[in-house]
């Protein structure tokens, strides 16, 4: 029983932190820019399959390939902004449909070029040993991913709450017109904020990829986690997202080790639904991200 408790405690931290990293960009896009970016799921795919393409197919080194894939993620995000978000700014329902369509197009393209049997594997393991925690042993890469997530959270939080550019990015979504009035280049700032928000999911996905079996449809399950965290957290508030990530992490650790690992996502979804029935606006609905 002590072993199970150790596992649950350790994995609540691991999953919680990791989910926070996965959802960070989505929460920021929702909270800072007020856009429910349903194309966010494609970022996970572009990050890993882009790296694979540059590394395995084109022949670049691993580090160069990772950098190039992050550049690719930024270009993709910018294109989503210019082509979809800007175009459908006044038609939110069309925008949501178009964003999902973009995600599915990316997914199907990847599934065409790299079907599951291709066996994509990216050696981004930073620490491959087991880390002892009480009675449990945790794969070192999970621990690395969890701490990188927390570091990204800290960096992004400082950027958005303490810096001039962070303040301007938080302000633009409040009133486009007022922003232009005070001399802010709205389009450039908005696109830049979206690109900044697209970096954490790319990094976290690259770190998780050696542990999770990659397939072209993995974007949906990871994206589901991002949506769950953001919605349960209150859409855009980072304090809420932190609470939500660790609650979902705990549910998944608890279900995974004490009940049945196959029920992890299902039970997390059900619990989130119940919480939302009681608190429809999530744990911490607020106008600010912190």
């Amino acid at each position, binding site marked *: 029983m002590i072993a199970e408790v150790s596992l649950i405690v350790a994995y609540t931290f691991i999953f919680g932190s990791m989910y926070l990293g996965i959802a960070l960009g989505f929460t920021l896009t929702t909270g800072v820019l007020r856009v429910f970016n349903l194309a966010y799921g494609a970022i996970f795919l572009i990050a890993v399959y882009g790296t694979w393409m540059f590394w395995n197919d084109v022949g670049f080194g691993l580090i160069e390939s990772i950098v190039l894939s992050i550049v690719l993620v930024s270009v993709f995000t910018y294109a989503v902004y210019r082509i979809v978000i800007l175009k459908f700014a006044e038609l939110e329902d069309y925008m949501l449909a178009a964003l999902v369509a973009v995600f599915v197009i990316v997914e199907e393209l990847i599934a065409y070029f790299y079907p599951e049997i291709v066996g994509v594997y990216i050696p981004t393991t930073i620490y491959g040993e087991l880390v002892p925690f009480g009675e449990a042993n945790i794969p070192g890469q999970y621990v690395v991913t969890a701490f990188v997530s927390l570091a990204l959270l800290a960096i992004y939080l400082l950027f958005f709450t*303490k*810096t*001039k550019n962070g*303040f*301007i990015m938080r*302000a633009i979504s*409040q*009133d486009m*017109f*007022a*922003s*232009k*009035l*005070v*001399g*802010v*280049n*709205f389009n450039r700032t908005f696109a830049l904020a979206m690109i900044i928000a697209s970096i954490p999911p790319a990094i976290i996905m690259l770190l998780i990829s050696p542990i999770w079996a990659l397939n072209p449809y993995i974007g949906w399950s990871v994206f589901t986690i991002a949506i769950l965290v953001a919605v349960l957290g209150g859409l855009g508030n980072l304090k809420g997202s932190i609470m939500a990530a660790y609650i979902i992490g705990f549910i998944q650790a608890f279900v995974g080790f004490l009940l049945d690992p196959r029920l992890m996502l299902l039970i997390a979804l059900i619990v989130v639904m119940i919480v939302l029935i009681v608190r429809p606006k999530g744990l911490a609905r607020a*106008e600010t991200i912190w």
Partner: protein
Amino acid sequence: MIEMLKVSNLTKRFGGIIAVNDVSFEIKKGEIVGLIGPNGAGKTTLVNLISGFYSPDRGKIEFNGKNITKMRMDERAKLGIARTFQNPRVIPNMTAHMNVLYAILGSEHGKELTMTEAGAEAIYYLDLFGLLKKRDVLAGDLAIYELRLLELARALALRPKLLLVDEAMAGLNPAEAEAVSKLINRIRNEFDLTIMWIEHVLKVIMRSAERVLVMHYGRLIADGKPEEVVKKPEVIEAYIGEEEV
């Protein structure tokens, strides 16, 4: 005096209506120019064209010798054109302090400042307009008089060269209108501003402006000293039925 704003043959149509019709005028540096005219004369449209909210169908706008006709609103703000609105356009979900801070950070000189310096500067502007006590109040919770002051504080925080004031008296009681009027005159002197002031109410403009432009049905029908302009038959005709003449 050097000419700051030069508007030539400016025309803007909305469907079949010509809101601004072949309007040309100049404003010199340091002038305080009133723009008057009955409702629907095209005053606000003209200000919208100058501030970059609309682009004209025809004509040219020059600011300090630079052609700004095709510039975006944010680019014009950076050059030094600030404005206020008849219905104040502040950000309701942000505090009064943050609204002014945003203007400082967005402006050209804001790039040189740290967040702390910009915050302190925002306090200075709030204090100037007597809004210090309201610094942490959400702009959406402010009264109309306070909103007018906040808009002026925000406009001034951009360190503009030209300030366009659109009906700053609307919705204010006589005492408040008097206070706002005094403030505009005061900041003009202290900050070396050039002001173009739209007002539906003539009394204020007659007292404050050195020159008055009169619009009617989209056209500029008079341009001169206030006391001379109001004697012109076409101006009197335009205002027939209007109580304030």
